[in-house]
């Protein structure tokens, strides 16, 4: 079929022992429903999905139990009917051996389906609807990485020339895709046709390694039965890692995916066989991704074969139904021997991307040999399918020289393990690269965080400075305003006739009124004092002083008022003059009062003299020793009386003269 098809090759690669025959001799068996299902919320690349159920909820087979969070994420469905018995951290299929959030489902063994409706004829359905169906079904790449399929398919829509179905399955031991194609070729082809309907590629290539003759035969038969001529089955030579996405693209098209780029940039998209099968189930039958084909193999397993396993089935269940001797199992590997990882917990569940479980004996997968010094033989460089310099990367990773490792494109390493496989010094090269990649990722994350911290710190400083400046400006503005007010106040009186005459006049009027009131009040006080026959003349004198001052103020105010009113209104002149005369008139009026006051003073002084004389006489009669003191007091009072009389006379004379 592919006689005229030009195959290419990729650099490097290895030919490890296949170990595939063991598990392809018997058909796919059903693993059944285990006692318990553990469903990790993160079985895919991207954001973890969000649980929609609570402990105690009863769910049906195919019911959505956790929804995707964001676009790059995937839904999770109940693989069988039952009850949610726990939600929390449990051991998951991860290299770290860490626990992760999971939903635990205890099946009721009824296996009751939720209602699901498929699309029998998708040829009239829009690609968007089909993509939506795939997204709802929670389908992820089932070759191992677990990248959400709808993201891969929709990112590439419209610009795809070549759709590749990856059926290479190059890693030793794994036969899940092989058996799937042998038994479900029609469904797989249906899945590819759905993808082709969405992506509308010019060519569809079905890449299979030549170590799967039965699968090739089955696919070819199904294609001829269906009369499908669009899909070309290409048999490629067996070489590890030809199933790597970039390597398969290179073999089939001769194009190399650029460093850091995606195949879609070349107009190529690549999907896995298992994914195609899942797409068929989702679109045609409306069934979400709740099960997969997983290979159970290894020398510790007496009957290696492929199982149709519900997602979430603990590995323990598979070991039990296959009668695997756990005591004989030295290592339990999830995935292939090259890229898989050891699992410590037999409760670890099968997830969407778990294609193989190897129960290996000590003899089969011995402990890694002691690492020896690198002898710079260069075999790793020859084996590297990504054409990197594994030796250099090893030195950089070992000395934590991350910058140089990055410069040598460590990010393009696909971690296939070919270098470690060929290394005569048994150096765990891939482990070093994984470490360096993790450190680089961490360093980038730290750098982002520290950059953010720097920005926040600088912004905070700027804000504090700005606030300080604002405070300073406010203070300055306040001081300015106060100074201005002061200046205005001072300028108010002389500038009154130019600036705001009405306001000033009002002010002057007020001042005049206030002065007038003060004068009246002072007068009242004086009269009250006098009426009460207060003899303390000093108080009256004080009051009189205040009265004088008040009068002077009133006079000033009247003058100011008059001068203020004059230029404004001629009619007011009369008023002003009358005001002025009123003000000037005041002292004339008070002359009589003054005389009266002086008379009162004289009277008061007379009283005091009388009293002093009385006391002196009393002292004289009783012949007291203090008589001298009384004598002095009397003399003083008499002198004061003379003074008061004199003042009265003088004032009377003056006022008469003035008249």
């Amino acid at each position, binding site marked *: 079929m592919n006689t005229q098809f030009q195959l290419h090759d990729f650099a490097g690669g290895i030919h490890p022992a296949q170990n595939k025959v063991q598990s392809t001799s018997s058909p796919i068996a059903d693993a059944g429903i285990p006692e318990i299902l553990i469903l990790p919320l*993160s079985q895919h690349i991207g954001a973890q999905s969000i649980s929609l159920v609570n402990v105690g909820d009863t769910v049906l087979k195919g019911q959505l139990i956790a929804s995707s969070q964001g676009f790059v994420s995937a839904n999770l469905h109940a693989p069988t009917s039952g009850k949610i018995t726990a939600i929390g951290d449990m051991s998951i299929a991860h290299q770290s051996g860490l626990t992760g959030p999971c939903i635990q489902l205890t099946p009721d063994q009824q296996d009751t389906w939720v209602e699901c409706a498929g699309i029998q004829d998708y040829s009239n359905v829009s690609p968007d609807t089909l993509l939506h169906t795939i997204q709802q079904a929670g389908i992820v790449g089932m070759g191992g990485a677990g990248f959400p399929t709808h993201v891969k398919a929709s990112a590439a829509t419209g610009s795809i020339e070549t759709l590749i179905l990856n059926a290479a399955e190059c890693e030793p031991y794994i036969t899940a895709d092989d058996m799937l194609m042998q038994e479900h070729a029609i469904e797989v082809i249906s899945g590819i046709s759905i993808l082709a309907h969405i992506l509308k590629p010019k060519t569809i290539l079905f890449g299979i390694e030549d170590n799967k003759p039965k699968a090739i035969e089955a696919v070819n038969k199904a294609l001829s039965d269906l009369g499908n001529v669009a899909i070309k089955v290409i048999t490629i030579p067996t070489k590890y890692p030809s199933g790597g996405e970039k390597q398969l693209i290179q073999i089939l098209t001769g194009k190399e995916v650029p460093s850091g780029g995606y195949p879609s940039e070349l107009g190529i998209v690549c999907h896995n066989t298992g994914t195609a099968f899942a797409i068929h189930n989702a679109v045609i039958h409306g069934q979400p991704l709740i099960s997969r084909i997983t290979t159970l193999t290894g020398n510790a397993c007496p009957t290696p074969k492929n199982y149709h396993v519900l997602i979430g089935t603990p590995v323990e269940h598979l070991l039990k139904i296959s009668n695997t001797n756990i005591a004989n199992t030295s290592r339990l590997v999830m995935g292939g021997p090259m890229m898989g990882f050891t699992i410590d917990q037999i409760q670890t569940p099968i997830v969407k991307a778990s294609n193989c479980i190897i129960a290996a004996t000590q003899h089969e997968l011995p402990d890694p040999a002691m690492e020896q010094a690198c002898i710079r033989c260069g075999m790793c460089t020859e084996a590297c399918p990504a054409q990197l310099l594994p030796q250099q990367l090893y030195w950089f990773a070992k000395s934590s020289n991350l910058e140089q490792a990055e410069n040598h494109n460590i990010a393009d390493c696909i971690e296939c393990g070919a270098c470690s496989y060929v290394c005569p010094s048994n150096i765990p090269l891939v482990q070093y690269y994984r470490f360096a990649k993790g450190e680089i990722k961490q360093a980038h994350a*730290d750098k982002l965080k520290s950059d953010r*911290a*720097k920005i926040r710190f600088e912004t905070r400083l700027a804000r504090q400075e700005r606030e300080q400046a604002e405070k300073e400006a406010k203070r300055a503005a306040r001081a300015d305003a106060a100074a201005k007010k002061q200046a205005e106040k001072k300028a108010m009186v002389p500038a009154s006739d130019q600036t705001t005459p009405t306001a000033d006049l009002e002010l002057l009027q007020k001042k005049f009124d206030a002065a007038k009131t003060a004068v009246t009040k002072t007068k009242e006080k004086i009269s009250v004092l006098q009426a009460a026959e207060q003899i303390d003349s000093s108080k009256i004198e004080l009051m009189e002083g205040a009265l004088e001052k008040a009068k002077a103020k009133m006079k000033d105010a009247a003058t100011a008022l008059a001068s203020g009113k004059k230029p404004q209104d001629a009619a007011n002149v009369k008023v002003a003059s009358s005001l002025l005369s009123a003000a000037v008139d005041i002292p004339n009026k008070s002359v009589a009062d003054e005389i009266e006051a002086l008379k009162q003073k004289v009277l008061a002084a007379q009283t005091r003299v009388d009293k002093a004389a009385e006391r002196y006489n009393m002292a004289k009669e009783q012949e007291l020793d203090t008589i001298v003191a009384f004598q002095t007091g009397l003399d003083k009072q008499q002198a004061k009386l003379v003074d008061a009389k004199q003042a009265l006379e003088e004032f009377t004379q003056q006022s008469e003269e003035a008249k």
Partner: protein
Amino acid sequence: MEMSGIIIAISALVVLSLIFGAILGFASIRFKVEGNPLVEQIDALLPQTQCGQCSYPGCSPYAEAIANGTAGINKCPPGGESTILAIADLLGVEPEPLDAEHGTEKESVMVAVIREDECIGCTKCIQACPVDAILGAAKQMHTVIESECTGCDLCLDPCPVDCIDMVPVNTGLQEWHWDKPDQIIATDANQTHPLNEGKAA
């Protein structure tokens, strides 16, 4: 003849030196570097926790001090050995061990967490936080924005009720990465290696 040759040579050199001098003078004005680029380079290597453990008010003043030669390169405990190595590499000086006077390098990344039911809402920690990572208002409960906290400890002292704890950041699945292979290579395997324990005894 000889004299004229010398004169030509001298005058040619003078003309050349004038031309190049003019070019250099122009270039020194036209391409003048604003600020000290070294400060920025050093600052980029510092962890930006703004903790002040180096006795400078923030990472950038410390970077400036290093650039001026007034501070040693070993005063940054949050950055630790890797930062010292990076700065030593940049400046071409000998790396020094971390100055214990300024603190010790922490095992893991720490983050401040407020025991919220004990918080009295005094805002003191908010004022102390150099990166505005604490949210709250007077007489309202405060909380730390974990993703922005640099773990600088500066909020601990001002808290009048001691309700702030420094807790190590959990390594989740997203942050986890492989450790460096710890196997000792066979040729220099020493007696402490488990495989050689028997032989040593």
